[in-house]
């Protein structure tokens, strides 16, 4: 996926997430947390600042919430603490990418071990 596709998907997801809050029959809905499709699952985590992180994985993959929390912490460290990163812009932080790949690989290895 190139940057334009990523932006398109992200903005689509943002809108769907916002609409889901309004569609909810109960008050105080904080948006979609899990989307189950026949070929994949989509887990979403929203921080209290409104930033949303979502991960697309194989159906039935466990412990995605924990992975999302780890990704949130990586974002907090390598993106937010980078003084040259402009808020709300696409993330082009190499350290973030490297650490993200490592975290996902570790998670996959741990998953095989479970």
């Amino acid at each position, binding site marked *: 996926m190139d940057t334009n596709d990523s932006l398109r998907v992200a903005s689509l997801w*943002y*809108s769907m997430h*916002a*609409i889901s*809050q*309004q569609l909810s029959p109960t008050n105080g809905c904080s948006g979609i947390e899990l989307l189950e499709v026949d070929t994949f699952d989509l887990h979403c985590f929203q*921080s*209290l*600042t*409104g*930033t949303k992180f979502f991960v697309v994985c194989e159906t039935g993959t466990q*412990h995605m*919430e*924990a992975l999302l*929390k780890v990704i*949130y*912490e990586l*974002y*907090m460290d390598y993106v*937010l*603490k980078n003084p040259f990163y402009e*808020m709300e812009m696409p993330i082009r932080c190499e350290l973030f990418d490297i650490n993200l790949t490592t975290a996902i690989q570790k998670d996959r290895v741990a998953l095989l071990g479970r």
Partner: protein
Amino acid sequence: MPPAAPRSGDAIFASVERVNAELFTLTYGAIVRQLLTDLEEVEEVNKQLDQMGYNIGIRLIDEFLAKSNVSRCVDFKETAEMIAKVGFKMFLGVTASVMNWDADGTCCSIVLEDNPLVDFVELPDTCQGLYYCNILSGVIRGALEMVAMKTEVTWIRDMLRGDDAYELQVKLLKQVPEEYPYKDDE
């Protein structure tokens, strides 16, 4: 998976990496001195410190939320307690207390018992209008803006100006929940 319990300011402060406090004080002092040299006007320096604090605050809030595992605050009173008890403790290692609530519950004072920014500092006569710690007011304002609260943060008492404590007034101007991309009447 059950949500993790919120952590206390002490616990988080104990778990982060340390740096020499004097280095921190010296660095901040160097920033203020440089701003005074570059901008010359004390009011401009106050504004710039506030802006710098704001830029820090908008980023710091996510760190605060991630490390402290707090859930959404029920009201502004809880928010103020969070800032004083967890926030200040976690980032500056100081205890702060909340007092002087107004009738609506939208305005309070946060009093700092200790302030590592001002160790060894004395304001000269030429800088009497300077709010030396104005970065702190910007940090609080920026952080709260990212969690949908527009606030005004001002210094009520400043020990460098001869008062007996450091007191920040935090006033909630309005709650600004995130705008939905679709309006009902379109």
